Every structure is written in structure tokens, then in C-alpha cells.
């Protein structure tokens, strides 16, 4: 378990706002990275950072030192991101009902694009990765981001999301399956050229 600078968590719990400031300064960048990967949007990621610390401040008395403070923060951030993604998806669905043309970014990226070497580092790959991540359900994206980018174990992810081990595994499997389906056409040629 990590040790927070100068027992900042304990001091923050007893109402020391300077200690809470230290915690904010220590963890903001990591929470931003997690939030951006989950929401795929800079503005939303900023909201998640802000909201995570507000919620953490309000719930400091509920924090139990069984898990590290950063794991606890990740849990708050991922749950809030999950809510945000779901809300966004609902709004987008409503907006897109009447608009067919911008429904699927993935479809708009041409498949007969230039060779893999150029593509691999080109913006089209990034767009395609973002589009593929956006195709995941909120639950799948959260589980995948926590596993793939944050290196959390399946058990830790299950605890954060309140899901059982099997359900967590399946969220990750489905996410990988969908990503593979979307991205294999552009990495396929690279594989055969290895």
C-alpha cells in the first residue's frame, strides 16, 4: 500500500484543508489521464477530475484504509465517468435519431486507406481507435480502461464497479472482441508482413 505524503489522508480527514490540497496536487494528473481514457473528451475529463475530488472531500469519513487512497479515488472517478458516459450516450442517441449521416464515425473512415506503415502513425489510426473505444458500452469501456491502461486486476475492477469476477471478465472480453473487430482490418496487413 502506498504511503501518502506526511499522512495527508489522516490530516485531511480531520479537516486539514492543506492536507487535502496536497492530495489533490498529488493525484490530479493520474485522475485526468484515467478520466480522459474513459470519456475520450478533454472537457468531460476535467469535469471528472473536479467531481472526483469534490466527492472524495464529502466522503472522506467513509474512506477505509483497506485500499490505497489512489485506488479509492480511481473508484470514485471511474464510477462518475461511467455515469457521465451513460448520460452522454443517452443524449447522443436522442440527437442522432434524426441524423443518420454522423451516426457512425467508424463507417466514415475509408477501409482502402494507405499502407499500414503510414496509417499506424497517422491520425486516421487515432481516430479509428477513438471511434472503436466509443463503440464500447460504458461498462465495457470502464473495465477495459482500468485493466489495459491502469493495470488494475480483474478483482480490483470488480470491486470498483460492484460487479462479480465473471461479469468483470466478460466486460473485458467483450471490449477486446469489439476492439479487435474494429481495428484488425488496419493491423491485419501489418501482421502478415511481420
Amino acid at each position, binding site marked *: 500500500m502506498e504511503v501518502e505524503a506526511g499522512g495527508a489522508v489522516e490530516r485531511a480527514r480531520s479537516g486539514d*484543508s492543506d492536507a*487535502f*490540497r496536497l492530495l*489533490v*496536487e*498529488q*493525484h*490530479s*494528473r493520474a485522475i*485526468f*489521464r484515467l478520466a*480522459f*481514457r474513459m470519456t475520450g473528451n*478533454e*472537457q468531460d475529463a476535467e*469535469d*471528472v*477530475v*473536479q*467531481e472526483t*475530488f*469534490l466527492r472524495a*472531500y464529502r466522503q472522506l469519513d467513509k474512506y477505509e484504509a483497506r485500499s490505497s487512497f489512489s485506488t479509492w479515488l480511481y473508484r470514485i472517478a471511474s464510477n462518475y465517468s461511467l*455515469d*457521465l458516459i451513460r*448520460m452522454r450516450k443517452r*443524449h447522443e442517441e436522442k440527437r442522432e435519431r434524426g441524423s443518420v449521416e454522423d451516426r457512425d464515425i467508424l463507417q466514415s473512415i475509408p477501409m482502402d486507406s494507405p499502407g499500414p506503415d503510414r496509417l*499506424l*502513425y497517422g491520425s486516421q*489510426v*487515432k481516430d479509428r*481507435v*477513438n471511434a*472503436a*473505444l466509443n463503440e464500447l458500452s460504458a461498462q465495457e469501456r470502464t473495465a477495459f480502461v482500468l*485493466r*489495459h491502461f491502469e493495470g488494475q*486486476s*480483474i478483482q480490483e475492477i470488480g470491486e470498483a464497479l460492484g460487479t462479480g469476477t465473471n461479469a468483470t*471478465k466478460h466486460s*473485458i*472480453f467483450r471490449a*477486446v*472482441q469489439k*476492439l*479487435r473487430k474494429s*481495428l*484488425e482490418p*488496419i*493491423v*491485419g496487413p*501489418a*501482421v502478415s508482413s*511481420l
Partner: protein
Amino acid sequence: MTGHISEEQFVLFYYGESAETVEVESHMAECETCRSDFRTLQLVLNTVDSAPVPERNGEYGKTVWSRLEKQLAGRKRRSFMQWWIWAPAMAALLLTAFLAGRLSHKNDPQVATNQQIRERILLVAVGDHLERSQMVLAELTNAADGQGKLDISDERQTAEQLLDDNRLYRQTARSNGDTVVASVLDDLERVLLEISHSPSEVSSDQLNELRREIESRGVLFKVRVLGSRVRQEESKPVSEKEKRTL
């Protein structure tokens, strides 16, 4: 290991969570098909890593804190005497008593009067609930549009508190067969949920989204109409019989 490696086994192996690491490795050493499949999976997942994350410099934590500090300073400290802390618990008690009375003494005239009193008290509670909901919706609808962000943390917090009460009242209305009231409370609940899930600070776009949500359901209007109906009921004079039992 019999047969080829499944996609799920590959995923667990890739993330180091497989219980069959040795078997997977020895199978791949001999199976070109599985080696190729795994290479593709590696490449796909490595490609995912290419999605860039905007950089935040070392001062970012200080920037976050300076935004937070204002909000934390403005946050009102809850005290035990703030009535909305214990109001939901009181409403729940009241509701339980009300339902218990309705179920157990349907034909007793004396109890029928007590039931009328409970209904009246419940009416007052619902009236207050609608009034507070109306205030939250009106504040968001009428909030001034600015260039920057708008702090709606108070509205959000109130919406969170109102949600539990709303559920109770909606369920009661539905079980009493009052579909009109239940439907208004149902619409209100969806909007309260949206508000409570919003960030504490919203951009102009996010605020407009909330407004559209409120307007598309006509919730504010419905809540006003229902609220005034409830207040009218409340203001009806108490019968002599009711007074005697008070």
C-alpha cells in the same frame, strides 16, 4: 491443452491473469495458428495505446486545487438542525403509518378520520416536496448564461436529496391508483436523476442540455400545476370531526 487457445484465454494471458500460463506458452511454441492469433491480438491492443492523452503539466494539480478551493469554501456545512436531513426519514415513517392504517382499518369510522389526518399531513409533505423540486427546476431554467462555467452544486445536492422522497411518493401514488400524480412524479424523477448525475460545474452546453430535458417533458409546468392542486387540497378547512380527534 486440447485444441486451439480460445480468445478469452488469450486475453487473460495477455494481461497476466491466466491460470494456465505454462500450458498456453507451450501450446503456442508448437502452434503457428495460435501464435499468429496472439500476434494480432498484441498488435490490436498495442494500437489502442496509440490513442494520445492530452498532457497536463506539473502545475496541473495546483490549477485543480484553485478551482476546487472556491467550491469547497462555498459549500455550506450541513447541520443536524437543517430540516432536509431528517425530513425524508419523517416522510418514510409517515408513509408507513399511512399505509398501515389504510390496510388494517378500512371500515372503522374513527380510524377513517385518523386516516384523513394522515392524508392531510402527507399532503403537506408532498406539497413541500413539489415546492422544493419546483425551485430547483426554476433555478436551472432561469440561470443566467455566461461564457464560463456555472456552479450548480447546490441544485445537484438538493436533487439528490429529493430523489429518495420522490421515489416514495411515486410508489405510494401508483399503489393508490393515482396514475396522473404517479406519472408527474415519474417525469420529475428522471429529471432529478439527470441533475444529480451532472457535474457540480456545468458549461453553457451542459446547462442547455438540462434545460432541454426539463422543457421536453414539460416537468416544470406539470409540477407547478400539481403543486397548486396539492396546496388547494391542503387549504381546505379541517372538518369538525377531524378537529375533535386532533
